[in-house]
């Protein structure tokens, strides 16, 4: 993230946390909503679901911002809420009565565009990693979190984050060497 934009983002976050109001919350929502919608869509949610879950995250942010002790930890805190919301959503989904789901092509033919993640090169790469590695690579390269932020979101040591990224790249290099080069 460019330094200028990072500083602007910091200002918006600081303004909301310093003086929560409808106005400062609206600015924060403008900043954070694209991150959150992208987060949920990159994990397989369709647009409507991504919007619903983003609202849930923002509701938690609105209600619980006073609980955030260090303002520098806003992004990890935000992504941690998102992760919990997503886990709860998947848990609820697994309890629902299964319904017939049209396949991706049929949905597209019915005018519902397929999630771009599903047909991306990134998704193909991620399929060759295990869930832990995938989660870290998504946070690093799609959500653009720094190593220390990923460590805070997942509550693991920063060395583990670096190690998993290193090994994931090794795995990808070995698996896709001929295609990527």
């Amino acid at each position: 993230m460019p330094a200028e934009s990072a500083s602007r983002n910091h200002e918006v976050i600081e303004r909301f946390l310093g003086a929560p109001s409808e106005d400062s919350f609206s600015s924060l929502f403008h900043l954070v909503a694209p991150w959150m919608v992208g987060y949920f869509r990159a994990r397989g949610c369709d647009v409507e679901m991504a919007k619903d879950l983003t609202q849930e995250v923002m509701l938690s942010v609105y209600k619980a911002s006073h609980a955030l002790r260090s303002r520098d930890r806003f992004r990890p805190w935000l992504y941690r809420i998102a992760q919990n919301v997503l886990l709860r959503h998947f848990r609820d989904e697994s309890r629902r009565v299964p319904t017939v789901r049209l396949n991706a092509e049929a949905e597209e033919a019915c005018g519902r565009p397929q999630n771009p993640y599903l047909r991306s090169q990134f998704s193909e790469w991620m399929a060759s990693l295990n869930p832990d590695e995938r989660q870290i690579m998504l946070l690093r390269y799609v959500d653009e979190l720094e190593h220390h932020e990923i460590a805070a979101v997942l509550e693991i040591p920063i060395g583990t984050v670096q190690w998993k990224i290193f090994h994931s790249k090794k795995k990808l290099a070995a698996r896709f060497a001929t295609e990527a080069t």
Partner: protein
Amino acid sequence: MHHDISEQEWLDYVSGVLAPARAAFIRSHAATCVKCARTLGSFAEWHDLMMQEGSRLRSALELPSDEMESFIADSVEAICAGERPGSRSWSWSVAEGLFFMRVLMEPICGAGTARASIKLAVERSTTRSEGGLCRRNWQLFVANLSEVVASICGLAAGSLVKHAGASLAIAGA
């Protein structure tokens, strides 16, 4: 990737946290060792590839700006108004409302009286033009029902029916 360089050192080197002296050693080693140079190159290449594809994916996942704007406006309004966003406010259909009233009244005045009182109150509260009980005449129905119940079972029962019925939000036109 051995050559007196541990995997941890490679990791630290790639992460940019290796001590300068060791980093210089790895750089000079990679300049002469084809295998290590290739591996190091592939890390840098994969980093760039992931950055590029991640950026492309972020753009593809973005919502159109007008959709995003209206989503944000609606959500901010709902959250700041204290509503839970995305959830519908709780409301009852007329049939659910009637069922609730009947269940409430049966232990007080018996099933038969409850049914007859509701029937009478519905008849008093609706006109043909309205086509039956609906949200518009629900409060009138509650007032009539409360009156009927009060006359049969006493003021306390009438008051209970009145307050319970008035607290229901009936959906629909």
